[in-house]
């Protein structure tokens, strides 16, 4: 450490680290010379916890890995167990899963948008996004019984069916939402302060995203159209073979995957905002299907006595913060032998030192905020 460098600690208690991330920065004036993320302040032993619980007992805990998008974790785990135990999931429950997951993605992106802009110093959008997120959470509460820890999916289906009444409410919400998104865009997208702060800041190259296994909107902002929801893939890397593409009923739905070109903070913002619009499109398609079709939502298995045959499975889900994978290895007993999680935020934190080098200190927020890192997902 040279003499004119200032070592500064951001976190673990700092208003803008979105949890308990600690960044050790070395500043030269206002220029960041090095950055070292220190993680682990929120480690709860999520993976170890699975080993002394039955499959069903572990299910409610899974929601807490990423508290902003509980459905995705829940689905990743359920999907792995269902594939191992060969449980069929009915079409209707698949549609409801897509519906709830897309709503969850929307709520997660809304929270990200609000906090990102708050980090950048704009206060009002936070309240607007929270106002709209509140509507989604209330709908979730009506459906599942709680606002964040849903515990709604079970092996082979869902806990209970959605009512037409609820679907109507979601339909109303989808109708008003595009106007609200337009509001956010009016406030921020062309704002010269915002654009100069984010354009060409924190540029992720195609190569480094692949090297660092960045997934999700952060990857798509660089121009690589990889989305596990889509069955047709155009990866930059030919060797990149992944299974579980086009899971659930996504291949039947009509949607496009928004991408951008440069991979800077602004593009990441843009991709997420576009993704919110795609979410709305998917939600309305699901509502239409669910209103015209009926069916069973749960397969008749004894959930609490579930024994999974020996084997292992990885299920990949396109979560709001990148691919969320759940690896389950079973030894044939009632408890999973090993559960391993792979979550998008962890890799986003990993690339921070590289991205932050030789940037300005105020850029820290523009870069770190745009990566959409959530700490419980990093530490698990």
């Amino acid at each position, binding site marked *: 450490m040279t003499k004119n460098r200032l070592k500064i600690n951001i976190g673990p208690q700092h208003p803008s680290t979105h949890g308990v991330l600690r960044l050790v920065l070395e500043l030269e004036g206002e220029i960041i010379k090095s950055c070292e993320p220190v993680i682990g302040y929120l480690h709860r032993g999520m993976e170890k916890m699975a080993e002394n*619980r*039955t499959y*069903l*007992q*572990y*299910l*409610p*805990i899974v929601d807490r890995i990423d508290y902003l998008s509980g459905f995705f974790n829940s689905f990743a785990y359920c999907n792995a167990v269902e594939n191992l135990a060969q449980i069929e999931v009915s079409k209707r429950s698949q549609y409801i899963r897509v519906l709830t997951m897309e709503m969850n993605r929307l709520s997660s992106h809304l929270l990200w948008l609000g906090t990102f802009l708050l980090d950048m110093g704009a206060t*009002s959008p936070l309240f*607007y996004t929270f*106002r709209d997120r*509140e509507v989604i959470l*209330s709908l979730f*509460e*009506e*459906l*599942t*019984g*709680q606002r964040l*820890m849903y*515990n709604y999916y*079970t092996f082979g289906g869902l*806990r*209970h069916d959605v009512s037409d009444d609820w679907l109507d409410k979601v339909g109303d919400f989808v109708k008003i939402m595009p106007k609200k998104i337009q*509001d956010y865009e*009016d*406030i*921020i*997208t*062309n*704002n*010269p302060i915002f654009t100069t702060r984010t354009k060409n800041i924190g540029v992720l190259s195609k190569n480094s995203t692949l090297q660092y296994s960045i997934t999700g909107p952060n990857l798509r902002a660089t121009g690589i159209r990889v989305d596990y929801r889509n069955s047709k893939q155009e990866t930059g890397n030919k060797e990149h073979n992944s299974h579980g593409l086009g899971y659930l009923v996504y291949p039947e739905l009509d949607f496009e995957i928004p991408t951008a070109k440069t991979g800077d903070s602004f593009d990441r913002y843009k991709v997420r905002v576009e993704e919110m619009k795609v979410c709305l499109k998917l939600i309305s398609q699901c509502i239409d299907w669910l209103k015209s079709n009926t069916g069973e939502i749960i397969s008749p298995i004894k*959930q*609490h006595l579930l024994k999974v045959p020996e084997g292992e499975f990885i299920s990949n889900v396109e979560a709001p913060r990148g691919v969320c994978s759940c690896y389950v290895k079973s030894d044939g007993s009632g408890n999973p032998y090993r559960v391993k999680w792979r979550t998008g935020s962890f890799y986003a934190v990993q690339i921070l030192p590289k991205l932050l080098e030789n940037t300005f200190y105020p850029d820290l927020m523009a870069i770190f905020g745009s990566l959409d890192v959530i700490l419980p997902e990093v530490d698990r």
Partner: protein
Amino acid sequence: MMKKSLKPFRDIIALALGHLTVFKHVFKRPVTLEYPEKKLPLNDNFRGEHALVVDNEGKLLCTACGTCQRVCPSFETIEIEKEKNESGKFYPKNYTIDLNKCIFCGNCVQYCPFGAIIMTKEYELADEKKSALKLDINTLKKNYSDSIIKKTVKSKR
């Protein structure tokens, strides 16, 4: 591509649009919920404090089978003291739920084969003493009679 010379004007228009968009919210109704006075309406699915279902004759539906213990994700949350009655059926002599450990996942309600346990809409559980969060069988019965939802006694699933 827009001309670069036009950029200042576009910037000013964007700034003005932003300010207008924020200003327009002045005329909208506040969305604040003044919490202790007004509360969000809760529906029947809500997962709040537990209650043990009592039938019309004042008997518990619970048979102390222990399914709720087996599906509960946190250990030692539910404790049941089992006893046989005159007709040879099991019933819980004591049934405690420790809300300090409960994560309100609702598994016990979902997987109870007799529909003997429900969750009420009560969610303001803060108390001065930790022991107040340990619900014994009498509290759970009382919760049921207090609860607004009187679920019709569910038949065996």
